[in-house]
C-alpha cells in the first residue's frame, strides 16, 4: 500500500512537472525568442482598427503590426509570431511574468505604469485622447457648449475622471449616464438615452463608423485628455527594449524619408543621396547594429513586410477604412503632428 501511494505521488509530481514544462528564462529575451522560433506578443482581445481577426482568423490591426515589425526585425519573417489575447486586467501580469515578450495593446504610457509596475515603454505609436461625439442634429460645435448635457460614459475608467475634471474646470454641469461596455454605450447613445458619448477619439471614430448613418454624428474637436499609446516590455532587458523601440522608430523614420513597402527593395539595393536612408536600409553600416543582434537588412524586412508608419496607419485606421481617422496628432512632425523618430545615426 505504501509503495502504491509512493508510486502515485511520484507519478503526480512527474505529471505536474511535465505540465509546468519549466523553461527557465535564460540570459536575454532575444535569445529566448530566437530559440523558441517565434515571438509572443500580447494584443487586445478585439479593438476596432487596433487588433481584430479577419474573416480567415488572422489577427490584423495597427497594434498587431507593431508585433509583426518586431518579428520581421528579429527573424526576417513577420509571421514568426504568436499572439496572446489580453484584457485590461491581465496584460501587465502577463508581461511581467514573461508569458509574453512584448505588449502592444493600446496601453497608455503613464508614470506609475512605467515606474511602479517596472515596465519600459519603448515609444508611442498612437497619440489618442478623450473626445466627445454628438448627433449632428443637436447642433453642437464644440465641447464648450455641452453645459447641462447628459453624457454616456464607461464606468471605472480614467475617462470618467477626465470627464468630471473637464466639466468642473469649465464650470459646467452634466448628467452622467453610466454604461459598462462600449457596445452598450453605442446602443444607448443611438437610442438617445444621452446627448453625448465620450471615450478615446479612436474609439469614437470606430463607434461612429459602426452606425448606419455615420454622417449624422460629429466628433467634437476638443481633446480633454492625453492618451499616448505605445508598445512596452519588461524592465531589465535593455537590448530587447532597444530592439522593440528601434523597430517602431524604423517604421516612423521610413515614412519621413519616403521609404515605402513598394520602393524599399529598390532603395536598399543602391546608394541613396540621403545618408540616413542608407544607414536605415543597411546600404551603409549603422554603428552598433550588431549589439542589437539584428541582421543588416532588419529595417528592410520591417518595411517590406509590414510597411512604414503612414502605410500601416492608412491600412488600419485611415481615411479609406470604415473608421476613417485623420492623422491629426499622429502626423509626422514635418506635417505638424507629434510622430517623430530619433535619427538613425
Amino acid at each position, binding site marked *: 500500500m505504501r509503495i502504491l501511494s509512493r508510486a502515485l505521488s511520484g507519478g503526480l509530481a512527474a505529471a505536474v512537472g511535465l505540465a509546468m514544462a519549466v523553461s*527557465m*528564462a535564460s540570459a536575454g529575451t532575444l535569445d529566448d525568442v530566437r530559440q523558441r522560433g517565434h515571438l509572443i506578443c500580447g494584443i487586445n*482581445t478585439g479593438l476596432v482598427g487596433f487588433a*481584430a481577426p479577419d*474573416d480567415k*482568423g488572422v489577427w490584423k490591426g495597427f497594434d498587431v503590426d507593431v508585433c509583426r515589425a518586431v518579428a520581421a526585425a528579429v527573424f526576417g519573417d513577420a509571421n514568426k509570431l504568436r499572439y496572446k489575447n489580453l484584457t485590461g486586467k491581465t496584460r501587465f501580469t502577463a508581461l511581467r511574468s514573461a508569458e509574453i515578450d512584448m505588449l502592444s495593446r493600446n496601453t497608455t504610457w503613464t508614470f506609475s505604469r512605467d515606474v511602479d509596475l517596472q515596465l519600459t515603454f519603448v515609444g508611442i505609436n498612437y497619440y489618442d485622447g478623450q473626445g466627445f461625439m454628438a448627433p449632428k442634429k443637436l447642433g453642437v460645435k464644440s465641447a464648450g457648449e455641452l453645459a447641462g448635457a447628459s453624457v454616456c460614459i464607461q464606468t471605472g475608467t480614467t475617462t470618467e475622471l477626465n470627464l468630471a475634471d473637464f466639466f468642473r474646470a469649465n464650470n459646467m454641469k452634466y448628467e452622467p449616464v453610466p454604461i459598462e461596455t462600449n457596445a452598450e454605450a453605442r446602443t444607448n447613445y443611438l437610442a438617445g438615452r444621452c446627448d453625448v458619448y465620450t471615450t478615446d477619439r479612436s474609439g469614437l471614430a470606430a463607434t461612429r463608423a459602426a452606425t448606419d448613418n455615420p454622417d449624422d454624428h460629429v466628433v467634437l474637436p476638443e481633446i480633454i485628455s492625453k492618451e499616448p499609446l505605445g508598445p512596452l516590455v519588461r524592465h531589465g532587458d535593455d537590448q530587447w527594449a532597444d530592439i522593440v523601440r528601434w523597430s517602431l522608430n524604423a517604421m516612423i523614420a521610413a515614412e519621413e524619408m519616403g521609404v515605402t513597402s513598394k520602393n524599399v527593395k529598390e532603395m536598399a539595393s543602391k546608394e541613396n543621396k540621403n545618408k540616413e536612408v542608407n544607414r536605415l536600409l543597411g546600404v551603409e553600416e549603422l554603428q552598433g547594429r550588431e549589439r542589437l543582434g539584428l541582421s543588416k537588412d532588419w529595417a528592410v524586412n520591417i518595411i517590406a513586410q509590414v510597411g512604414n508608419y503612414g502605410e500601416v496607419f492608412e491600412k488600419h485606421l485611415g481615411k479609406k477604412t470604415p473608421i476613417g481617422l485623420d492623422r491629426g496628432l499622429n502626423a509626422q512632425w514635418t506635417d505638424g503632428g507629434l510622430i517623430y523618430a530619433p535619427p538613425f545615426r
Partner: protein
Amino acid sequence: MSLPATASPTYPPGQHPDLPPPPGSAGVVGWLRANLFSSVFNTALTFVSVWLIYEFVTAAIDWFVLEAVWEAGSRVDCRKQGDGACWAVIATRVDQFVYGFYPADQRWRPVLTFVLLFPALAPVLFDRTPYRSQLLWFSLAYPALGAWLIHGGLGLPVVDTDAYGGFLLTMILGVTGIVASLPLGILLALGRQSQLLVVRVLCVTFIEVVRGVPLITLLFIASTMLNYFLPPGTNFDLLIRVLIMVTLFAAAYLAEAVRGGLQAISRGQYEAADSLGLSYWKKTWLITLPQALKIAIPGMVNVFIGLYKDSTLVVIIGLLDPLGVARAVLADAKWNGLSNETYLFIALFFFMSCFAMSRYSLWLEGRLSVGDR
C-alpha cells in the same frame, strides 16, 4: 310560477337524457367567451393583446427571416441588401465561433472528439445502452483520448491551447469541469460527513473557502496570482490553470448538493447497513450513495448548468470563448456594430445545450422515480 307547456316528451323521473350544454357555453366558442370575451374590459384587453402579439411576431419574423441578409461581405453591404438581421456575420465567421483559432487543417480532431463524446456518454447516462459494460471502459479512456486528440503530441501536431476558442472552448471547459468535479464533489461531500476529524476539517474548510469566493476571483488567481508564485519563466498553461479552478469551484458546490442527498436519507438506512456489518465503503457504495445521488439530481444538474454558463467568465481573463470571439469579430471594422446578431446566436447555442441538460435530468428523475419518495 308555472312554465308554459312544451311539446317535449315526458320522461320518468331520473330517465331524462343528458341535454347538450346551452349553445355558446362549451367548445371553442365557450372557451373564447369564458376566457377572452367575458366582459367589455376583457374583450378590449384581448384585442389589444392580439394586436401587440401580431405586431411583435411580424416584426420579429421580418427581422429574423424575411428582411435578413445571409450573404454579404460587410455590415455596410448587409444594410444595402435589407433592414433585417445581418446573419452574414455569423455565416462568414461560423468557423471562429465554433473552433476559435484552431488551425483549419486540424479541425477534424475536435470534431472527432465531439462525435466520440456521445458513445462515451451514452453508457454513463443511459443504463439500457447496448454493450454497456464494454462501452464503460471506453468512457473511462475518453478523457485521455479527447485530450490527446485536441492537444496533439504522440504523432499528431501539437495545437497550442491559445488557439482554442469559441464553442470548442466552452465544451472543453464544460465537459472537463463536469466530469472532473463529479467524483471530487462526491468525495468532498463524504469527507464532510466523515468521522475522521482531519478529513472533515479539511473538507469543510475547502468547501467553505471556495464557496465563499466568486468564480471570477478564482479565475484571476489562476491567470495572474499564480504567475507570481511560480518561478519566473515557468509556463504552466493558462487553460489548465483555469480548468483546475473551474473544477474546484464546481466540486465545492456539488459537494453541498450531494450532502443534501446524504442527509435526506433516513437514519435507518445507515443503521441497517451498519447492522449488516458492511464496511464504510461498502455501505456508501451500495446503500447510501445511490439513494443520495438520486435525491441530489436536480441540485447537481443545477450546478452543472451553472458551471457551463459560468464558463463564459473566462472572457475576462482573455480566453476567447464564444463571447470573446464575438468581441473579436465585432472589432473587425467590417462587422463592427452587429452585436445583436452575434449575441443572439450565442444565446441560442447556450439555450440548446442547457435545455438538453435539464431535459436529461427530468428524464432521469422520472426513470429513477425520485418523485415517489
